[in-house]
């Protein structure tokens, strides 16, 4: 009987070894260890054994069972692993096939850059003020030291609604409103003027026909700072910070004397050419610098006109053209693209 048991073990182990899948393993388990399995069949004959033999054979039988079980389970996990691997391999996909993109929308490049600039200024303590686009001549010109018949009015071809109402030609119109409001607030609360730090982004209008670099409607961002002891050096520092945040820490700016009726001294601000870094190339017309914005110290007459004493307070203002910055940023060479809104254009930003 002991021999029979050993035979069963040998047979079982050899069959287990050649099993090819988990199903066969299960069949083998039934065949050898099941209720009607071979081992059980043998053990049924235990009754015919002597009392001395019984424990010995019992021990052998248990060892055989345990060996077969171990072999089964070892083989099973091996086969399972193989089957799993085979399955995983079958799950091969072509990873070079294009992905299924979610249909997302895009913000307009003008909004993206404008938001970026707003955040830079917010970080420097500038609030955002909005003004109306349809504006009184008085706020767009007269109070900005551009009286009627001032020749500089010619340089800003203006759309008029009535003699006194126009489409603002510059966001500078917001300056006057902000200063007047702050003065009124200070007076009402019987206190001295609070520091003013604002930017004002928005649409402006000039009667330029549409072409690659002109549009009768475009966007400016105006900045205004008024406080005690504000200097031209502060203006320079503020613009430097802006440009370095927009264009990188190595960005340099250059101020050139210029003339704007509402600032004195006035400056045009050039930024070092991004392409040649100041050595001169075709992009900057060999100048090394690209004209980007206008700025200056708020003209004493403008301050005075708003009820601010220029002997006590000083301030600076600047205005940048958003389109120009956007076009440089993205390498857009035709301004019309911004207003044509072709979806193939919009999706690039």
């Amino acid at each position: 009987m002991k021999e029979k048991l050993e035979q069963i073990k040998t047979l079982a182990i050899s069959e287990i070894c050649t099993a090819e899948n988990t199903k066969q393993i299960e069949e083998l388990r039934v065949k050898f260890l099941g209720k009607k399995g071979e081992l059980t069949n043998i053990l049924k004959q235990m009754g015919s054994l002597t009392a001395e033999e019984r424990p010995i054979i019992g021990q052998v039988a248990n060892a055989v069972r345990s060996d077969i079980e171990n072999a089964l389970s070892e083989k099973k996990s091996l086969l399972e692993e193989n089957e799993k691997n085979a399955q995983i391999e079958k799950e091969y996909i072509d990873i070079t096939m294009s992905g299924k993109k979610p249909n997302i929308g895009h913000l307009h490049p003008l909004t993206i850059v404008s938001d970026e600039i707003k955040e830079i200024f917010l970080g420097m303590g500038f609030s955002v003020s909005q003004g109306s686009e349809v504006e009184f001549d008085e706020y767009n010109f007269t109070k900005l030291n551009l009286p009627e018949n001032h020749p500089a009015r010619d340089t800003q071809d203006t759309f008029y609604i009535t003699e006194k109402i126009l489409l603002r030609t510059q966001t500078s119109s917001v300056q006057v409103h902000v200063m007047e409001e702050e003065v009124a607030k200070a007076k009402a609360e019987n206190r001295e003027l609070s520091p003013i730090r604002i930017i004002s982004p928005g649409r402006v209008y000039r009667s330029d026909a549409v072409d690659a670099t002109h549009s009768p409607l475009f966007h400016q961002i105006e900045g205004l700072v008024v406080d005690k002891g504000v200097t031209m050096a502060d203006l320079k520092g503020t613009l430097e910070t802006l440009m370095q945040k927009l264009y990188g820490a190595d960005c340099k700016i250059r101020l050139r004397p210029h003339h704007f009726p509402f600032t004195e001294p006035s400056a045009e601000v050039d930024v070092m050419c991004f392409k040649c870094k100041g050595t001169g190339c075709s992009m900057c017309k060999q100048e090394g610098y690209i004209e980007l914005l206008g700025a200056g110290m708020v003209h004493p007459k403008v301050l005075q006109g708003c009820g601010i004493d220029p002997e006590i307070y000083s301030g600076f203002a600047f205005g940048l053209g958003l389109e120009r910055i956007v076009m440089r940023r993205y390498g857009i060479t035709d301004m019309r693209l911004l207003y044509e809104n072709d979806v193939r254009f919009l999706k690039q930003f």
Partner: protein
Amino acid sequence: MQLSLKWLKDYVDLRCSIKEYCHRMTLSGSKVEGFSEQKLDFVVIGQVKNMEKHPNSDHMFITQIDIGESELLQIVTGAQNVNIGDFLPVATIGADLPNGLKIKKSKLRGVESNGMLCSLSELGLTKNDFPYAIEDGIFIIDPKDLGANSENSPIGKNAAELLGLDDVSVEFEITSNRPDCLSVIGLARETAATFNTIYSVEEPSFKGVSGENNLSVTIQNSEKCKRYCAGLVKNVKIEPSPRWMRERLKSSGVRPINNLVDITNYVMLEYGQPMHAFDLRFVDGEKIVVRDAFDGEKIMTLDGVTRELSSDMLVIADATHPIGIAGIMGGEHSGIMPDTNTVVFESAYFEPISLRKTAKKLGMRSDASSRYEKGVDPKISLTCLKRAFELVELLGAGEVIDEIIDVDYTQATPACVSSNKNLPLSTSGFCDSQEILNFSNKIPLYLDAEWTNDFLGTNISEKDMVDYLERLDFTVVTKGTIFERGKITVPSFRIDIESKADIAEEIARLYGYDNIQSTKLRGVAEAEFTNEQKFIRTVNTICSAVGCNEIATFSFISPKELDKICLPIDSKLRNTVKISNPLGEDTSIMRTTTIPSMLEIIAINNNNRNLSGKFFEIGKEYIPTSPDTLPKELDRLTIGCYGETDFYILKGIIETLLEKIGILKTVYNTPNGEFEEQIALHPYRCAVIGAKISQNPDDKKFIPLGIFGQIHPNVAKNYDFDTPVFVAKLEIDTLLQLSKNETIYKSIPKFPSITRDLALVCDEKITSYQLETIIKKSIGSIFESISLFDVYRDQKLGENKKSLAYSIVMRSPDSTLTDDLADKAIAKTLKNISELANIR
């Protein structure tokens, strides 16, 4: 302003490269736009040493030219006026001539030719430049023109240099506050100040001849004409100006005409003072009267146009008629004619504002008028007249009568003198501040070094400040009493200087803006976006997250756009803010609705063959108030889509948006005149979006938030849409008002839900909203959510019937919901629904 560098060098010693000159001038405030060098590279002076007939030609010659090199240059020429010993311009290999010709080595009928002998025109010259030269032959140069002598041979030298054709013309952008820089002398002054060198201008003088001068000048309106100087030149000889003058005019961008006209232009370019010369024959009574025009008075101007004048315009008249519009344009006879004998020269100062108004009213602009408009130096009228006469004598253009007239109201006491040239005159271009005060009521200025440094953020010494100002011809009193010290005298040509800030700019620009050390703003400032600004950002983010692309459209549209969206004639939206001087009809009114702007963009995309698109824009509508007040500018969210979309996709976008901004109780109704744009939408495929006011579901009142739907087929036709287009317009201000951005977390349910599907067949007229309301109410407290997942129509269902399939989720918040309870709720629902007619 185009500046001849040669001319500039008459007044200032300039020793730097052209590039450095441009750079430093730009940085001191005279922006250089560019420069052009008159170049004749590889064109040298040669002398003919030998010549023989060409063996294969009966008209050509083979010449041997000395150009100062070891070997003679062999050049073949067809010209017949060349002789041995002649000096001539030789274009050598590599030359690039003004007429576009490039010189290369060549063979002419088998004989090598290594260059070209040049004619006048090949060098860009005319007979007027060198009257002795012939036009149809080689330009044989008079050795005198080359300064040739035994010590200094011109041979081999650059022809342009020796002939004076090597000028550099610099283009300046002069800002409107600096009309004084629109002149050679003005720029010489700026140049000297920038380079810290000196410039000098000699006071002009002329000999004159004694003669009769019966001319009289009367200024009737001394407000508008503060000074009028005039003099006569008789026996004029009209001919081309000499080459040097022609070259300078050309370098300055002015075409030479004849000596008299050229002189007036020359003086204008040199000093910035417009000059006028006209024939004395046409001055009736030899009387010049500067007066207001009569209303309706007519004059034919030099350009042949008859103009009607009005009393606010200033004219130069003779005893009977106007002979010119002051400072703008002369009358028809005021030109110089071949038979002109005596010429009146005028040099005057006209008040800028009224002159500008006149020019604008008449639609006339000339170089002279634009200079007067910006403001010329009131002190130089007489100097310029004298300069003109100096040039007349220099050019031999006529005889100047030595008695000249100067009527001057610029002084404190009006002077009206007929002065001889030898009278001492304060015409140097400067005046003391007292005069300025009288002239334009300016307050005297003082140099305040401390204030200036505080203002600029600099640390410039007072001594340097004085130096900068003096370089610019300001004077500063540095000694004396406390009242005198620091007092600044501003030169008369600096009409822009009014305040301390102006003085600060002068100091800053000569100190160099570049030398100002940047500082950071001091002090803390609070800043944050306003609720509205934050809200607009949120809406932008949501709209782009749901797949819409932001667009930017013009705020002005064509009135035709309102027709295209089929607005009735009496629609409120047709009352628009109109631009009185639009570029064209397309951009002539401010939009009262954003929908046409969106439709235009969809049309562009559709025409560009983009198959689909979803767009949005937050833009303004401009609603007129009264003629004297500003319109309301209202922010609107416009959404538009076409291709791969439908009504419910747009509605889903709107629902998502409203949910995200916290407007939860909404209602979608058939529009009932809430928005005028209703007319542009498909009547059965549009809805007004409302926010419910009351919690009570029976209360039908709502606040309209916007309108949306499919474009009406008529409108679609107007835009040539070949696919359904959907638009929505929502009012940002209302959305902002109702939006709640406080989100309160709801706990995630602990107990499982039960879902039941219901398919309900009903009349077409029954709305999903009606059904949903009943379902919600019937299910009661265990109701969680409902969604419509299928709509089905079939003949089998019957005429005008539809089947709506809903999935209903039920859940009890505090226990596991039993099937029994759920079934009961559904049974109750079905019972309630069947009470509504025709539902099974």
